[in-house]
């Protein structure tokens, strides 16, 4: 009897807590209001998604999307009428969506693929980067195509869309390879570097960034067919039209003024920290088209083409 009442107490407590939590979530639905009240905005950043978003050490973050978000935050500051403090919070592939939903992060500026599943939970800005999923291999391995992966070991990162891409491709190509899952991108790259995996399947920009920062960038190359094309965008809470408008207006203006192209050149075609090497990834045709005619369509819209 005592046990049952204790159990009931726990359940009641749980229910009250969850009610309280939902209560705060509703109170914070508009990011602009939250920013105005607190005087700060929390930017979600990545540790190792160079050149989009990465750490330069000492809790400093930089990258194409970080710069883009700083411009967006300037715009938000203007909108709410006060200078906002920017607080950086590192996120991972696994926690970025929950953290954006629950308000730990206001604006996620990493390398998040905009797809239909995620659109049920969060909102995306206009697409600012198009990534092609390919693979990085050791230059000495002689691998140039997915077909050569039969019997080999392929690495990818837990909690990314590439895992599904790889799975679908394995089924279509009837290729038989062993999968390894790194816990983050740096880890997956280490799997290739240490010889545990023969290839690392991931977004080309991430691969290029990791290779640029490797001990000997010449030892690695990006090869193979394009496994999927994915629109990458900044992410924020869903059902927040005010926020969506500010984000999209900023991006649209930057696209029209050429500021975005300049930002692209800065991060993808010029030497970047920490090693002052360039990832050397010229802008693809899809992104060039998007700058002329911006949209926020999910990945599925591209697959049908």
């Amino acid at each position, binding site marked *: 009897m005592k046990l049952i009442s204790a159990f009931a107490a726990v359940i009641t407590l749980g229910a009250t807590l969850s009610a309280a939590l939902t209560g705060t979530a509703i109170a914070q639905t508009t990011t602009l209001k939250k920013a105005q009240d607190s005087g700060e905005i929390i930017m979600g950043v990545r540790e190792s998604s160079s050149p989009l978003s990465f750490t330069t050490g000492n809790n400093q973050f930089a990258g194409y999307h970080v710069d883009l978000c700083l411009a967006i935050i300037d715009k938000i500051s203007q909108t709410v009428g006060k200078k906002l403090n920017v607080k950086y919070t590192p996120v991972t592939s696994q926690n970025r969506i929950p953290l954006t939903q629950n308000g730990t992060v206001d604006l996620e500026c990493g390398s998040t693929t905009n797809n239909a599943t995620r659109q049920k939970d969060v909102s995306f800005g206009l697409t600012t980067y198009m990534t092609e999923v390919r693979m990085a291999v050791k230059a000495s391995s002689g691998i140039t195509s997915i077909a050569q992966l039969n019997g080999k070991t392929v690495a990818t990162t837990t909690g990314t869309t590439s895992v599904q891409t790889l799975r679908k491709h394995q089924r279509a190509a009837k290729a038989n390879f062993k999968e390894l899952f790194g816990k983050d991108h740096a880890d997956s790259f280490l799997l290739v570097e240490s010889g*545990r995996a023969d290839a690392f399947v991931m977004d080309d920009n991430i691969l290029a960034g990791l290779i640029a920062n490797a001990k000997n960038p010449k030892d690695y190359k990006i090869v193979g067919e394009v496994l999927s094309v994915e629109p990458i965008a900044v992410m924020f809470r869903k059902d927040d039209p005010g926020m969506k408008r500010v984000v999209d207006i900023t991006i649209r203006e930057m696209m029209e003024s050429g500021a975005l192209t300049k930002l692209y050149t800065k991060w993808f075609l010029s030497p970047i920290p920490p090693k002052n090497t360039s990832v050397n990834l010229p802008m693809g045709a899809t992104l060039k088209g998007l700058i002329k005619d911006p949209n926020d369509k999910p990945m599925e819209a591209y697959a049908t083409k």
Partner: protein
Amino acid sequence: MNWEWQFFLRDIGDGETTYLDWMISAWGWTLAVAGCAWVVALLFGSIIGTLRTVPNRWLAGAANAWVELFRNIPLLVQIFLWYFVVPTLVPPLQQVPSFIMVVLGLGFFTSARVAEQVRAGIQSLSRGQRNAGLALGLTLPQTYRFVLLPMAFRIVLPPLTSEAMNIIKNSSVAFAVSISELTMFAMQAQEETSRGIEVYLAVTSLYIVSTMVVNRALAYVETRVRVPGYVGGGK
């Protein structure tokens, strides 16, 4: 909160496996890692723990070193050491599957804790027990085998039960070296289905079920091996 559990019956994209199948196989990996690591931990833990109490200074010192080495490094760091660093120093280990590496890593880590408990169990016995064994003409190993260890293990069975439950929970570090156990399933499946709460609830229940079964099983062993009238022996 609107629940949605149907995704468990959805195909994960390879045309034959559902999320439920995947979760069951992930549960299997969790139990396999934990089970094998427990064998390693119990074997090494018992030997090392016993050695810590022997009169030979060198043996006891070596056993102490083992315990201090494995209990003073965080578990996740140990797993990475086994997986990435050790194979660079000893190239043949490159070929060893990550399952073996994680079983050894987790097993050795837990062996340090088991050793501490075994040592405590032996030292909790009065010194007269050892002396009586030796006085009867038993050799030192025989004294351990027939006098000290049978009592010591009975005494430390409750903390060992906690350790056995811990190893199931600690096996979640295996996700970091690419074993598709429950934690990795949770991370990947919640990303693919975006039903994180349901995924984590299901995975949490499986962890609870596994540890409760271990708990009950060892509690049964405890009652079965009880010596009436002795420590923890009841009436």
